[in-house]
Structures are given as structure tokens and as C-alpha cells.
């Protein structure tokens, strides 16, 4: 089953992501384990009063890149069933910007496939973040780690 491709479903959403629904997309009687990763907007000690992050994307390329990325993941873990949703727009602290669910017959495959997808997303899916701060300032997040532009979750 390749839900996302078959139904031409978008990997992008502008509304909160339901974990239970995402997991339902990958669950199957043949799978004994599912690993889910949630990336959430952070305002920790490394951040400077972040209230939300505005996510934007090269949307057509995000869709194309997710198809390629999930094709790669399925080649590595043929028995895994993987679903992913990336949220765009203004996302408040604590809410999820991305959710990945990977179900597999054995749990090691589920953990590995899920981890692979998030690492590849960070590397190749064209999404950008602008931190919105309590003082009203707005700062583009530079993943290379310049002081004024920390990634919200790394």
C-alpha cells in the first residue's frame, strides 16, 4: 500500500496533525511495531523567546522530494509502511511541524525507517522557518547554526 501516492494525497497540511490518524494509515496485521517521530516547535533555553514558527516551502518540490525520499526508504525497508505529514503556516510552540509514522513487522525496522526519514527530511525537503519572538522580531532559522538563527529542533 502506498497511500500517499495512490490517493494523490498531499504530504503537506496547514492544520494540526493527528497522530492517531497518521498511525492508522500505516497499521496492518503484518506489522508488530510502529515508530512515530514528531518534530515540535521549541522554545527552550537555546531559543530567544520564540512564540511560534512560520513554516514556508517550495511546495511542488516538497511533494516531489517526499515521493523520492519514501521510494528510497521503501527500497531499504521493503516491509515497512511509512506515512508522513509536514505542516506549513504559523505553528505555535509545542505543536508538531512534522510527523512520520513507520510500521514494520519488527521494531528495529520501524525505528530505523522512521529515523532515516526525519534525517533525510532535514537534509533535502525544501522547507524554511522563520521564528516569531515575543519582542515582535522575526528571524529566519539558519540550520548551519548562526547564533541569531537557531533551528527549533535539531
Amino acid at each position, binding site marked *: 500500500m502506498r497511500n500517499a501516492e495512490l490517493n494523490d494525497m498531499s504530504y503537506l497540511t496547514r492544520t494540526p496533525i493527528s497522530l492517531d490518524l497518521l498511525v492508522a494509515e500505516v497499521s496492518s496485521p503484518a506489522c508488530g511495531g510502529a515508530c512515530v517521530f514528531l518534530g515540535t516547535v521549541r522554545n527552550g533555553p537555546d531559543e530567544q523567546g520564540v512564540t511560534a514558527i512560520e513554516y514556508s516551502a*517550495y511546495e511542488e*518540490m516538497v511533494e516531489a*522530494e517526499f515521493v523520492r525520499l519514501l521510494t528510497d526508504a521503501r527500497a531499504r525497508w521493503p516491509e515497512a509502511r511509512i506515512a508522513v505529514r509536514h505542516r506549513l503556516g504559523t505553528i505555535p510552540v509545542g505543536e508538531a511541524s512534522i510527523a512520520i509514522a513507520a510500521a514494520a513487522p519488527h521494531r528495529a525496522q520501524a525505528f530505523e525507517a522512521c529515523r532515516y526519514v526525519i534525517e533525510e527530511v*532535514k537534509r533535502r525537503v*525544501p*522547507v*524554511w522557518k522563520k521564528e516569531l519572538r515575543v519582542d515582535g522580531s522575526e528571524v*529566519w532559522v539558519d*540550520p548551519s547554526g548562526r547564533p541569531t538563527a537557531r*533551528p527549533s529542533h535539531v
Partner: protein
Amino acid sequence: MDTATQATVRVRFFARYAELVGRSEAAVSLPLPATVGDVVRRVREDFPGASALPERPLAAVNLKQVKLDAHVQDGDEVALLPPIAGG
């Protein structure tokens, strides 16, 4: 100029780059053969804020990341991408 030796590509700017250039897209014409690097040079010369773009930005042609020495064809969509911060 002979159209067979000339390409017009659609250039798209995203996130911080769109802010720097003050626009989200532009049409750029240039003689063939041409590479993505040629498109970047042309953009940095022709658009006011674009000189602040890096000389070697991340780029995609037709929704796929490419190196700057990749060739472009007439009708291609060339995107200049700030460092990716997805997830």
C-alpha cells in the same frame, strides 16, 4: 538572436532569498549552452537586492536539487533555495 541558442527560464526565490530580492519569481533569458551557475550570475547582476544572494546557493531545476554546473534548457524552472530547515 536565434531562439534555438537562447533559453528563457523561470527563476523562483524562496524564504529569505525572496525577501532579499523583493520578489518570488522572475523570467531570465540567456544564451545556450547555460548552466544553473550562469542563471545565478545573471540574477545577481540584474535584480537590485539579488547581489546579496550567495554566489553559490543551493539550487533545484524542475523540482530536483542540482549542482551549479547542471545545464538548463528553455522552459526550465530554476529555484534558488536558502539552507534547508525542514522538519
